[in-house]
Every structure is written in C-alpha cells, then in structure tokens.
C-alpha cells in the first residue's frame, strides 16, 4: 500500500476544497493507504475544535476525528494558525501543530503528493 500526502490551503468555510480533501483522505484510508494531511494558510481553520454543525456550512470535525482514529496524521501550520488567533488550546484533539518543514518532510516518502492551493 502507498502513502498519500495531502496539503490543503483552503478555508473550511467559503470553499469546498477541504471537504473534497477529507473525503479523498477517507477513500485512501479505506483502501489501506497511509495518509498525511497538512493544512496551512486559511486551511488551518479546520484545526479548530468545537465546530458547530449547521446544514449550510461545511462541518468536518467528525470525519477528521474518525480518520485520525483510523491512523491519518493531520497537522496544521502553527504560524498560520497563530496568525489567525487559533491557539493550541483551541486545537481539535488528534491535530498536531508544526512548522512548514513537517509538510515537506512528509513528501519525502510519499508516493503521491496532492497539493490543493488556497483561495
């Protein structure tokens, strides 16, 4: 089985790119692949805990937690999060926070890198 590294820079609300990326990660894990997931820029919005589900807005906390439980590694850019006021204590359980070199290191042994830019 392979390893997929996904980088997504789009926001949780205002774009469907994160929804797509999380669904793709789920499909890869279901097939037995390893997935590393990096969020940076506005994508760090995904890392905030206690998201409230509304039918009109993307809500990804539940699927992300399920994928983390299945072995997905998910990491937010610490500087991008802090710049937006998303602090460590507000970070969803299972989400790591690192500097950008974590993403680049993840590409080292990835079979595929899917980079989804921001808005």
């Amino acid at each position: 089985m392979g390893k997929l590294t996904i980088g997504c820079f789009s926001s949780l609300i205002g774009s469907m790119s994160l929804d797509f990326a999380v669904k793709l990660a789920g499909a890869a894990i279901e097939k037995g692949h390893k997935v590393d997931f990096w969020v940076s820029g506005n994508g760090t919005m995904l890392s905030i805990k206690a998201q409230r589900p509304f039918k009109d807005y993307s809500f990804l906390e539940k699927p992300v937690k399920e994928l983390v439980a299945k072995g997905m590694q998910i990491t937010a850019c610490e500087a991008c999060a802090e710049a937006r006021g998303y602090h460590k204590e507000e970070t969803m359980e299972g989400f790591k926070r690192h500097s950008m070199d974590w993403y680049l290191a993840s590409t080292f042994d990835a079979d595929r890198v899917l980079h989804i830019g921001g808005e």
Partner: protein
Amino acid sequence: MATVKLGFIVQRPPYKSENPKLALTHAIASQSVEMYLNDGDLVTADLAFVGDGVLNCLKNQKAMDKYGLTSTESHIKSALMLDLSVMVCKEDLERFGLSEDDVVLDAEEFGADMVTKVVPYSEIAKMMEDSNHLLFF
C-alpha cells in the same frame, strides 16, 4: 541517502491572496526539513514564477511601508540567500511589458551568491519534469 525534489510553481499575483507568500515560506522551510529525515536524506525546493505569478518578482515593493508586512520581494531575497533556485518565465514577463531589469535578481546585501534566473518557459518545464512532486500556488 536520497533526495526528493519539489517544484514550487507560483502562478497567482502578489498580495491578492496569500498563495505566493505561502509558496515562498514553504520552499524556504526545505532548509530545516532534515530534522525529520534520516542522515543524508534531503528534500530540495525549486521555485518558478509563471503567468500572473511573475508579478511577485517586481523590484521595490513597498509592503512593509504601506502595510507593515514582509514583501514578496523580501521573501524572494531570503530564498536566494538560502541558495534556492528561483526562475522567472521570460515570456510571461514580456507579456506584461516587463524585462529582467524590472525583477529581483539578487540579494547581494544579504551576501547571497544565488541569483534569479529569467528563463524561457521550456527551462521551467524541464525543472518540472525533473521534480518528484509539483506544488502549484
């Protein structure tokens, strides 16, 4: 020991979005990636500006004066100082009526030996072919 080559392709204009700055900061982060890897393993980053992205390379940006923000120009100089390869598409510069004289070519003030290369698109295409993974910003 192995090296993975990443190609960072910047195609968005500066300041309209965060993308070009994130391309530069992520590429610069290749300098500290070794701490996650085994001895001798490397991840390298090559930067190329194409399309509207060539506007990121204009000289004399005033982001710090006007917005109190580090300019894209300054990030490009940091990349040169760290010996990253920086390429700018010649044809796309010409499309804007610009030339090599208009872009950030060096970072001599930081002691950088590396210089920005204004190259035909064919050279950027070659870099992309040689890269293990491409990241479009």
